[in-house]
């Protein structure tokens, strides 16, 4: 049971770190694909 709980905690921890990492790398479409002359 301890291994299972630790596994779930580790999965959530890694996923959270991955989520923050992805959000810092990728930008929303309105920022990534627009110029000052485009309104979205």
């Amino acid at each position, binding site marked *: 049971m301890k291994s299972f709980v630790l596994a779930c905690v580790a999965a959530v921890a890694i996923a*959270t770190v991955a989520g923050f990492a*992805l959000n810092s790398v990728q930008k929303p479409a309105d920022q*990534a694909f627009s110029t000052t002359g485009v309104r979205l």
Partner: protein
Amino acid sequence: MAGFLAQARFIIAAFVVALILALAVPAGAQQPSTVNPNAAAVKEQQLLNALQGGTIGGRVSIPDQKSGTLIQPGGRDWRQFHEVTLRWIGAIAILGMLVLLVVFYLVRGQVKLESGYSGRRIVRFNGFERFVHWMTATCFIILAVSGLNITFGKPLLMPLIGEPAFAGWSQWAKYAHNYLSFPFAIGVFIIFLVWIGGNIPNKVDVEWTKRGGGIVGHDHPPAYRFNAGQKMIYWIVVIGGTAVAITGYLLMFPFYGTGIQGMQLAQTVHAIIAVLFVAAMLGHIYIGTIGMEGAFEAMGEGTVDVNWAKEHHALWLAQENARTGPNESQRQPMATPAE
């Protein structure tokens, strides 16, 4: 007279065939070799076929030049795949496996521990192995449910819970699918490293397979730490897991690794492997839980009864006894509490 009638019928039939051919050949010859897009009766499908995999695009002023693509005929094939073909493949694979398991359970029943519990336990998987297994397994289940939602959610779930609820659930399922792919991929890689030593096929696997793994009847073909069935699951996880990870990351980072056609191919491969993966894991979950008495303890608490090891992994037990001595096995009460 009868001969004359037969001859007349033959002549008339030959004439009709000749007439049909005479009418058909010029009609076929009239088909243009190229499509005139300005023709009044031109069909959309003819135009798409004439593109021969190419695209129709224009010029755009925003930085993303890909947005200039107006028509990409390959997208229609891809849509047909994920809206129709994939659903059939997934339904046949997953429901087929479920039906197979139910029928097998009803016919064969649980594989019992025939010699009964000895009360002596032997360590089957250490804490780290169980940790990696459960991390990968829990992620896999969430990835499977959230992935199947993409394929089957719209026709099956949305009519039941309504569009707003389905939209909210699907959004969170997609987040979970993206983010939990990382611990899953790490888990698959560690599983590859930790268990590769015991999963190289050998002669014992041939004999084990010839005897059907003892799953039918009361045979107990010997096996080392992993039998041929477990090795098959191992390689499905390693190869299948790697394939879905690579194709998944191609989709998670659009246009970094490949173009639109490459991503359509990646999604096709990702989806087909994923549904087959789910079907295979259903078999794995079955045999590891209700399918075989004493099997879940191996990954649940890390130890198995010595009699279980003797029946299902006799060669491994002999190796362990030679390494540590048979007296190393711990005598424990029958009802061992979960860790």
